[in-house]
Structures are given as structure tokens and as C-alpha cells.
């Protein structure tokens, strides 16, 4: 029976190794802080610095601005006048600018079963017909998926679509009751949603989770931050520039009415804020002008093979995008420039297109970030 003992020895050796491997596998799920190494990059530091100095301040800003917006909307609906309207309009502009700076962080608390924060309150263009219908039918429950009737752009339509005097008239008296109530309802909805996400970050609960999830696999914080960063950049390119310009296949005419911020006519300013936010995230830089540069994707890239070249290429292209952006005339609204097919917009579209690969495929490839769920090829 000696072969049984041999078998037993083999089997127990194998079992021991399987046990070790399983333990290794189980402990891999837990966070283990690595001592800083001479080479390489500490993603925990990046996540800590980005969340503390970029993400949380931007959500705090948005939350405060939306809070002020709500107050000014209350004042306007209680006594509609050109003055209260103008206060509400500038509060809306402030809040939307703040939202643009926080919206690339559309993950974690911003995700829900019914879409992300941006999908829920940032959809444009607004749908005036349906909005008017809901107002006429006194439907204030917002119990539907037509997000283009609410959110920031629904509010923009109600506040900016007509002249100040006309808007005040529409909101006034008994005839304006439904409109007042609808505006109040969508303002409250906006605030509730912003508060939920901002509070999750501000309370520190999500930040700890974010910082500890320091791997590179799918679902890791680095992967989420990267994915939403790229998605946000592509949205700016595809839906704020190419689509209104009529650059989609089969489009025979431009669609100036599809610009972001059609009624407030601040489209170009919004686009500049959006793209500056993207650039700041890449640097790990705060939003304030001359902001402080923390550990971000740029510093991460500097530590990997081929990273320096990509940093140089990315910076050169960012400069080209900014030059193209600054060459777009500010004298007219973007929608008007689109109507006259202004050549500066074609240049901008081209430069944005050239930027895409540096963000989208080059960066994830060099950093080894996993961006899809399916299995890869094994050996």
C-alpha cells in the first residue's frame, strides 16, 4: 500500500498550497496599506488628495449654491417681480456652474438604480412642450422618466425662456399658480438629489471607502474616477459641440437649439468651465484660478513606462484645445455662431477629437486600469 502514502503526501502538499492560495485570495479582498516604495506610485495618496481637495470642495460648492438657488426661487415664487427673477436667474447660473465642476464625479453616491446624478438633473435640451403640459395638468409629482422636464435645464427653461417681464407675468397671479408650484417642485427635487450625494461625501463616509478601494480593477476608485472623467470629456465633445454643430452622420443641418444653456445663452462659458474641470482633474488641480496642483493622473502617469511622453502629448493637445476654445468669439451666443457655421467651431471640434485618444485609450493602457467587466485572455 505504499502508493497510498505517496498519494497522501502528494495530496496533502497540494491541499496545503490550495489553502495558502485561498487565504491569499481572501485577504486580497481586504485593504492592505503598502509601505511607500522607492519606485512606483501610491494610489491611496492620489485618491486621498483628489477627494479632499477636488471632489469634496466641488460638491460642497454645488450644495451651497443650490441651497441659495432654492432660497431665491422661494422669494421669486412668493412675490414674482423682475428683481426677484433676476436674483433667481443669477443664483441658477451660479448653481449650474458649480454643478459643472462636480459633475465629472458621477460615481459612487451619484449612482442609483434610476441613473446617475447627471442623468437625473443634467439632461439637455429641455422639453418645453412636455413641461408646459405638466404645468397645465398640474402634475407636480415628477413621477416619470422625462428628465428633460426638470433638473437644471427644466429650471433654465422656466426662468430664462421669455423676457424678464413676460416671465414675471407668467408666474404671477392665479394664472401663474401651477407654474409657481411646478418650479418649486423641480427646485426641491434638485436640492434633494444634490444633498444626498454631497452629504455622502461631506460626512466622510464615502471618502473612506473611496480612498481604501485603491486597486486598479473594475469597480476600484481609480477605475471609476477615470471612467467618469473620460465619459464627461466625451459628453462635452459629442453633445455640447459636435451634435449642435450638426456633425453627426445623417444630420443635414446644425441643431443650434440643442446647445447646453440655450435660454440663458451662456453655452460657451459653460463649455469652458466643463473643459477646464476636465483639465484640472487630469492635473489633480483645484478649480480656483491658479489652483494648487495635487497628486492626480498626471503625477500617476509620470511614474509608469511611457508616461512622460504621454504627459507631453496630452499637455500639448490641451494647449491646442484651449487656444481653439479662446478663438471662439464671445460676442454672440454659441447657438448663433452655430447658425452661421463659424469656422472657429470646426477647429474646436477637431482639436477636441485629437484630445480623445490621449485620455481614452492611451491613459488606461499605460496605467493598466481595467475599464470593462468581461474576462480578458488568460494564461
Amino acid at each position, binding site marked *: 500500500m505504499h502508493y497510498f502514502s505517496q498519494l497522501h503526501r502528494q495530496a496533502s502538499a497540494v491541499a496545503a*498550497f490550495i489553502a495558502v492560495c485561498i487565504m491569499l485570495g481572501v485577504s486580497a479582498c481586504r485593504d492592505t496599506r503598502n509601505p511607500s516604495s522607492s519606485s512606483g506610485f501610491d494610489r491611496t495618496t492620489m485618491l486621498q488628495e483628489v477627494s479632499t481637495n477636488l471632489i469634496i470642495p466641488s460638491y460642497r460648492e454645488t450644495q451651497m449654491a443650490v441651497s441659495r438657488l432654492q432660497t431665491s426661487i422661494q422669494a421669486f415664487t412668493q412675490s414674482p417681480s423682475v428683481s426677484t427673477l433676476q436674483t433667481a436667474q443669477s443664483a441658477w447660473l451660479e448653481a449650474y456652474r458649480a454643478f459643472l465642476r462636480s459633475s465629472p464625479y458621477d460615481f459612487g453616491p451619484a449612482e442609483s438604480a434610476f441613473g446617475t446624478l447627471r442623468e437625473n438633473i443634467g439632461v439637455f435640451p429641455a422639453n418645453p412642450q412636455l413641461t408646459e403640459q405638466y404645468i397645465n395638468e398640474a402634475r407636480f409629482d415628477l413621477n416619470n422618466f422625462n428628465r428633460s422636464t426638470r433638473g437644471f435645464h427644466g429650471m433654465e427653461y422656466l426662468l430664462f425662456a421669455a423676457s424678464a417681464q413676460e416671465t414675471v407675468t407668467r408666474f404671477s397671479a392665479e394664472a401663474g399658480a401651477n407654474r409657481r408650484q411646478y418650479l418649486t417642485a423641480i427646485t426641491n427635487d434638485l436640492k434633494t438629489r444634490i444633498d444626498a450625494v454631497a452629504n455622502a461625501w461631506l460626512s466622510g463616509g464615502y471618502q473612506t471607502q473611496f480612498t481604501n478601494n*485603491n486597486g486598479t480593477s473594475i469597480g476600484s476608485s481609480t477605475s471609476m474616477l477615470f471612467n467618469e472623467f473620460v465619459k464627461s470629456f466625451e459628453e462635452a465633445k459629442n453633445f455640447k459641440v459636435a451634435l449642435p454643430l450638426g456633425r453627426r*452622420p*445623417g444630420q443635414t443641418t446644425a441643431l443650434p437649439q440643442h446647445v447646453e444653456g440655450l435660454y440663458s445663452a451662456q453655452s460657451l462659458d459653460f463649455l469652458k468651465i466643463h473643459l477646464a474641470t476636465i483639465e484640472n482633474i487630469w492635473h489633480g488641480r483645484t478649480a480656483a484660478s491658479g489652483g494648487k496642483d495635487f497628486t492626480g493622473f498626471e503625477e500617476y502617469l509620470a511614474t509608469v513606462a511611457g508616461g512622460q511622453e504621454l504627459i507631453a502629448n496630452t499637455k500639448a493637445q490641451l494647449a491646442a484645445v484651449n487656444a481653439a476654445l479662446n478663438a471662439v468669439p464671445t460676442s454672440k451666443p454659441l447657438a448663433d455662431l452655430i447658425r452661421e457655421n463659424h469656422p472657429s467651431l470646426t477647429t474646436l471640434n477637431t482639436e477636441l*477629437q485629437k484630445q480623445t485618444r490621449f485620455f481614452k485609450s492611451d491613459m488606461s*493602457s499605460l496605467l*493598466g486600469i*481595467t475599464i470593462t467587466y*468581461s474576462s480578458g485572455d*488568460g494564461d
Partner: protein
Amino acid sequence: MKQSAFARLYERYRYRPFAPHSIAPLVMFRILFGAAMMLGVVRFLLLGWVDVQYVKPTVHFAYYGFEWIPPLHDALQATTNGWSIYAVFAIMLAAALGITLGAWYRASAVAYFLTFSYVELIDKTYYLNHYYFVSLVALLMTVLPAERECSVDVWRKPTLRLSSVPRWTVDILKFQVALVYVYAGVAKMQSEWLFRAMPLAIWLPANDTLPLIGVWLRERWVAYAFSWAGMVYDTTIIAWLIYPKTRAIAYVAVIVFHVLTGLMFQIGVFPLVMITLTPVFFSVQFHERCVSALKRLAKAEQPQQEQTQDLQARFPAHSSLGQRLVLAALATYVIVQILFPWRWLLYQDRISYKQLFWTEEGYRFGWRVMLMEKAGTATFYVKDSSTGKEGEVVNREFLNEHQEKQMAMQPDMLLEFAQHLRAYYAARGVHKPSVRAEVYVTLNGEPSRLYVDSTVNLAAERDSWQPKRWILPLSQ
């Protein structure tokens, strides 16, 4: 002279594949393969990938020669309200169970082979070497007498029981498993892998949060050590498994290697498949003990009816014609398997693995696993040939994340997508659309370069075995 030497060799070895061999390794292989496949199907279902990969996408990337599969899938889905693919997976699961238990074995094996291959052929986005491997093994299983012991079929019909089978039925499985490792090892014998430690120099630092070894993975020399060790492991592990004195330690190495790669890379069930199938190289005695242990466990010990039925009843082993047919089939299979992965050499002016990675001509079905880090960004432009107006496509409106990622770096997928776009926009009023693409690809951490000629109308190109002239050369 040569011919007679060949004839002598043939005469000497022609009976070898038909020598009696214990059925036990075959039985264990059947049980482990079936069990691993069941796990694979259940995992796939639980992850919700059927929906993501086969229900939601409106575009599927067909394999060359199997262009009829995606339309078949679409037609089945349309007529069954979307549940046909789930029915296919249900059959696949039942078939894997049938293989494991040896119940209605032949039907189960055929059903498993067909359903699994069908699903793989729907979309090459999800191509993996190990899926191809599973398809091949499943094909082999349809002809092997793996159910003739320790199975429901034998329990139902004891006369089916065999204690020995022709040797080739076990050897062909060993050949298949060995081919994967050896070819995976040979593919690593090139400068990118050995002298630039690519792509491990990218992938290992991304895993620096692993416990114990994580910190080390940031070091450059570790990437080199892993590269060389991986090459040596893949190339020689089969030899260590075959040699009895090193077998136990070699199997431990198999487990450690696959568990480690399984932790580091997103490679699904592949580690499990290899860990469960490599025991085919263990000794006959080992397998026989396993089989009898299983039988005791199942208390399915039949009244010991000695093997009376002889092999020729089912296996034409002693008929000369039958033998020749089996030999011819085996030889064809083995030769095709050995040669097919080398077809890439025919596409090359100057033999270079980097060129192979760049063009991927002859890349698939070659056991080239985890060999490169490649990614691309592809922008398609559709032009109306009467108005001359050109529009930019948003890929994600047609493709899921995984499809877009794979499409953006593989020439034949770029082509298929271009053709899909032409058909799509032609149906929506764009006059005779031409489709060109601006594609930038980065390979092993190098700056991205223009990948295909961005002036070529890809919708007018056809996929074929011929070299794709519109792929730009790597060096420019």
C-alpha cells in the same frame, strides 16, 4: 529510400494508438471537465453577462466564415421575445451536467459542443483563447468513450462498461492540453516579452495592492523575473507533469501559477479550467483510485461483471479500415492544430512578433495569451456621397464598452463596424455612405500611432485571408 523510412516508422507506430489503456483518466477528465463547465455557465449567468453580451447589444461582430451566426441569433431572439439565448444557456448547463454524470453522454457532449460554440460565434468581441480551447475539448469529448465507466449510462446499461480504451482517446486530450502550454510558452520567446518585460511591466505595478507580494510588483526587475519565469513555466510545465518524480511539485506549481494570475488579472474561469484539466497527466493508478473512490462514494458499484465486451464492438480498433480512418482523422486534427497557429508567418515580410501584435493577422486561435497591452480610440466618419457631408459617429450608441474597446484595436472588427455603419445610415437616408476611420492605437506603452489609412472607405473593403493593405505599417 525516404518513403520506405516513413513506411517503417508508420508500421512501427500505427498500432500504438490502439493499444489498450485504462479508461480511468478519461473518466476523471470527463467528470472534471463537465463540473468546471457547469461552474462556468452558472458564473456567467449570475454575473448577468448573457444580458450584457448577447441580449442588449444591437451589433455583433461575426467570425470570418461564420457571418450567418449573428443574424441567426438576432432572428431567434426576435421570434422568442429575447429568451432564446437563455434557452441555449439552459441546454448548455444541462449538457454540462450530462457530461459530468455521464448521462446520455453522447447527446450531452454534442449539445454542449454546439451550444457553447454557438454562443462564442455570436460575437468575437468576447474571443478568448480558453473559450476556443473549451470548444476544441468539447469537440473531442463528442467522440471519446468517456462515459463507459462510472456513469449514469453504465448504471442504466451495465454492458456499456469498459475497463480499457484505445490509447489515443487519452493521448489526444494530453496533446490538446500540452499544445496550449507549449505554444503559450513559445509565443513568449520574443524581445517585447523577454527584453522589455512587456506587457508585465505595465500590468504588475497596477496590482501593487495585492497582499504580501504587492509592493514587489512595482519593481522593474520583478516584471523581468515574472516574464522569464512565465516563459519557462509555460514551455516546460508539461514535461514536469509527465515525469513521475516531479509530478507532485509540478502540479503545485500549476496551482500557484494559475491562482496568482487569477488574482492579478481579470481572466475569469481560465485558472480553474487549467487546474482541473492538467491532472490528465497523472498516473493511471492515480486515476483508477479516484474512480473507485468515486464509485464507493456513489455506492453505485455494479455486480462485478468482468469486462467481456471487446473494444471492436464499438471502436473499430481491430478492423484495418476503421483503424486507418481513426489514424487519418487523428493525424489531420493534430497536424492542423500544430500548423494553424503559425499562419501568421505568411503575413510577414520580416518576421516580427511586434508586427503580429500590431496587425493581428493570424493572431487568434494561436494560444497567444496575455501577450500584449493594446488599446485604441477609433472615430468613424460617415459621408453622404451625394451631398459630401460627413458626420462623426458616437460608437457607444451602437456598441457596449467591451465591444468598443476591442473594436478600436482590431482591424477585422473595424471593418465589420464600418460595414454596419454603412448599412445603418444607408437605411436612414444617407446616400451611398462611405465610411472612413481615424484610429489611434497604443501598443505596449508606446505613444499611440495612426493605425489604418484614414482615407480608405472601409465599408468598401472585404475581410479575407489576404493581408489588409490599409493597415499602416508599425514603423513610420
